[in-house]
């Protein structure tokens, strides 16, 4: 993983909560809550979505690959659930990089923080994904 990642920013891009993809998400996650099943809102964690246009490949940003990296943790701060059909703007940056020496070798932890804002500029969801590059 590259060692000059900290602070690197991702070009802002728009994310639209498309109803068909959201439906797929609801099915895959065994969602049972009518609030979501009735389409009043989308589960906030559906914003995890490399399929959405513009979503960058986090592993490519971090200079690593499928072979070496896994997701170690995830965190969402939720101001409100996004609405189905709503378009949000995502701004991302590499918020943290830590290197840890282990008996098996060097492990790198990199956290990608993405903030999703609505048309008024208000923050809807902040996502932090930490990827671990194994030795």
């Amino acid at each position, binding site marked *: 993983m590259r060692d000059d990642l900290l602070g690197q920013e991702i070009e802002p891009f728009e994310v639209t909560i498309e109803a068909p993809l959201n439906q797929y*998400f609801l099915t895959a996650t065994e969602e049972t*809550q009518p609030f979501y099943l009735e389409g009043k*809102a989308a*589960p*906030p964690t559906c914003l995890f*979505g490399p399929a959405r246009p513009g979503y960058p490949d986090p592993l490519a940003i971090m200079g690593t690959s499928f072979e070496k990296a896994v997701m*170690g*943790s995830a965190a969402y701060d939720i101001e409100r659930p996004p609405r189905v059909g709503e378009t949000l703007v995502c701004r991302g940056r590499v918020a943290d990089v830590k290197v840890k020496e282990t008996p098996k070798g060097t492990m790198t932890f990199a956290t990608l923080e993405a903030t999703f804002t609505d048309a008024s500029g208000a923050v809807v969801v902040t996502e932090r994904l930490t990827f671990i590059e194994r030795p």
Partner: protein
Amino acid sequence: MNAGQSSGRCEQGATLEPITRGPITRSQIARFAAATGDFNPIHTDEAFAQKVGFPSIIAHGPLTLAFLTQALGHNFGPDKVKGVTAQFRAPILPGDTLRVEGTVTEVAGGRARCELRVVRGDDDVVATGTGTAEI
């Protein structure tokens, strides 16, 4: 109990009503990949997953995160969930049945904070996390 949702009673130490998800299926993992666009081959390619050290394909971390979020929504109401975190401690495999449990650790400022865990079988904790919800 449905902490906070049913009666407004939500006390430190209260146990959340658990939810159960699974058995996780290969088609479910594939559907989650399609919903999110995360086609990392550790989730979709059996041979690749085994090559990098997993016993089979594994579920996406954010699928587990969705289950944690659902447990909070089940107990507090889906529109009351303000934050969720997850640390992925062990790979989740096809066939796994998961129980999401939690405990209220703090009630302050109109919010409940919880510790969460995802348990496979009787006592195999495959993910831990925290949650925050309005009460």
